[in-house]
């Protein structure tokens, strides 16, 4: 954990030597590569991890996400690599996929559970966590591929099954360009 000299940090947030004064435009490679529609009222965010871009829609403990993987510098060269990775595993085992039909299209949808820590990062000793229920689908797109996912973080023991209506609509809206 880094110490938090917030205001001092802010004061030092000055333009770096030699940096351009021009503000860079926001870019979103995922929206450029596919059409999709998030639920009304959900918060939309875009970002990246390394070379891999993503767009998320979130509302409370629910999250929809599209990740674009397999491009240059991606952490996964192929969908097969992704499916063998910890990001596609549940309790250390590969998630199992079932074919789901949405409209006229078929998606192989995987189910996964994972743990989301609730304590501070860097804290020692036994920690607590919430269970996360997730559905995800892999959609090939040339040499790249998309990973669409829908998850819920369970702050209380899950009493109702995950409402898949939002997920199904999201899948139906998704179309690689």
């Amino acid at each position, binding site marked *: 954990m880094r110490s938090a000299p917030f205001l001092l940090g802010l004061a030092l947030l000055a333009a770096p030597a030699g940096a351009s004064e021009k503000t860079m435009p926001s870019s979103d490679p995922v929206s450029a590569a596919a059409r999709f529609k998030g639920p009304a009222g959900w918060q939309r965010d875009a970002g990246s991890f390394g070379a891999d871009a993503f767009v998320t829609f979130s509302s409370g403990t629910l999250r929809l996400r599209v990740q674009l993987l397999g491009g240059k510098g991606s952490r996964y060269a192929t969908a097969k690599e992704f499916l063998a990775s910890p990001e596609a595993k549940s309790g250390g085992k590969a998630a199992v996929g079932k074919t789901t039909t949405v409209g006229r299209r078929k998606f192989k949808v995987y189910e996964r559970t994972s743990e989301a820590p609730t304590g501070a990062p860097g804290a020692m*000793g036994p920690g607590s966590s919430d269970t996360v229920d997730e559905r995800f689908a892999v959609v090939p797109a040339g040499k790249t591929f998309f990973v669409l996912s829908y998850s819920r973080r369970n*702050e209380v023991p899950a009493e109702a099954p995950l409402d898949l209506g939002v997920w199904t609509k999201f899948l139906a809206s998704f179309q690689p360009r």
Partner: protein
Amino acid sequence: MKRLLAALFIIVLASAAGRAADPKKPPENEPGKAFNTRLEPKLSSAELAYILSEDSGGVYRLSEDGGSIANFSPESDYGPVLKFEDVATLIQAHAEKAAKMAKERLAEAKRTGRPPAFSDFEKRMAQDVRRTRHMFLSPEEMAALDEAFGYRYGKVPAAAPSLDFDVAPAAPGAVLPPVAARPPPQAARAAAAPADPAARALYEKLAANVTFAGTPREQATLRAMLGKVVETESGRRFAADFLKDSKAGETVLEFEDIPNSKVIDWNGKKIFTGSGGHAHTSDTPIRVHLNRNFLAIDDGTRDGASTLAHEFLGHSRQALKARRAGVAGAMRVWDQDEPNAGAVGWTAGLEMGLPATEGWMWSWVGDPAGYPQALKTNQAYYAGTFSRDEMRRTKPDGTSAVPDILEKRLQNAWSELKRQDDNERSWKGWDKAYRYFAAQPEFATEPERLEGVHRRIDGQLTGQIPSRRGNLEGIITYLGGQEALDSLRRGDAMPRRGGLIAHYSSPDGQKALTGAAAAADSELFKTIEAENTWLHGRLTKLTAGRSQSAEAPRPPDAWLSWEQFAKMVQAKKAENPKFPEGQ
């Protein structure tokens, strides 16, 4: 005779522990001679405190140098030094007392239907007795300790490396030897410099580059931790990168007393709770502070080495590079700095053989894209960090979109704060169900079966939910000032904003964000992103075939799982839809 037997028992124990076969075995006390507190077998602080207290039935005091114990009972001749067998008898009495305490608490628990309650000190004391003084106990007494304290998790753990409990309570009037005067067991055990020549050369360069602060023992432990870091593949990689452009004296390594941290017993092992450390990256020189409790726990040098890698080769290395690149301020608000430091520490930890039980590591390995978002809703500090995309994002008028981004985070935190009321109600419902079942004859006679369920519910109601509320209020006030929280609570139509939102909306704040947007495209940020991708791949390999649950301590077999409990509640609800209300 009892005294002699007790002394002989201790000698047998010492031999069984393998010390007798050690050519460098430490000097031992011998029957018939004065007991020397500095020779084996050493007294634990709990035993010493017992002997020096009225509970022991005598009036015993340490000599001024702390090396021997004198008998000051009125019936004695005032001052004779206790012999080994005298002390052995007292050790036995202390062990029997621990077993008696366990039996009494268990009996009370069975009578009341509530799990037995023990203080941390009692747990540690009793487990130490069970581990190191079992030869004094009857099978019945050992069974009582097993039932009461942690050994239900599995086999009895190996002997602790030291009986030295620095946090034991002092008996009234006791003269406890100062901690500084005691031998430094961890520092003495740990050889600082690695044996491998390449790692040793790197270690020597690093050790010459940084400043070790603190007592000689603390400095020796810090050196040993640094040695452990460069014994790892990733540690050498990042140490070499650090040395590429660092200058001597830019970093100080030291221990610090960190608030809200305490040493506890966990499954027979001494660990601590609270923060492992911090890197004060705004200071010159940068100060890396590790929690001083690393000096008091089992395997503290190795655990601390992982944290040292995080703070030193993670945060401090990147902060120094950011200073040189003129992007230090942006680095402090970039949401990839913490995952980078985290991954550096986790990777070194796994490479040095630590178990893969760190929850945040599994979270990052299993969802690196979602990790920063999880942090932003977890702690105030991270709520004020941004992705490269967010640093660059502008509104149609050309100004930075950061104030709007922060306003959304503030609103989300407010929604989540309100949701905690629903969560609390839900957990209180589970608590009612637990209390119903705990009162049933099936569980009243075996309350330990519901212990895991009780701990989870109690942890939520007394720990997680209050802590989450505090963190969410902290996020709101950090982002929008106290006025934001007050205004939300009043339901003001025109909410007021201070904090970061006000700052970033000001001309100075917008100017700072222009700098951050430029820093987002700096070579250093791109290099760190590439490093994070490499770290993710490395951790993926290191965790292949492993799982968090497999390496975490297993709950006792007697405990019902949450799933079993949930089924019981479900079945009861099928009988009575209003359950657990009205029970």
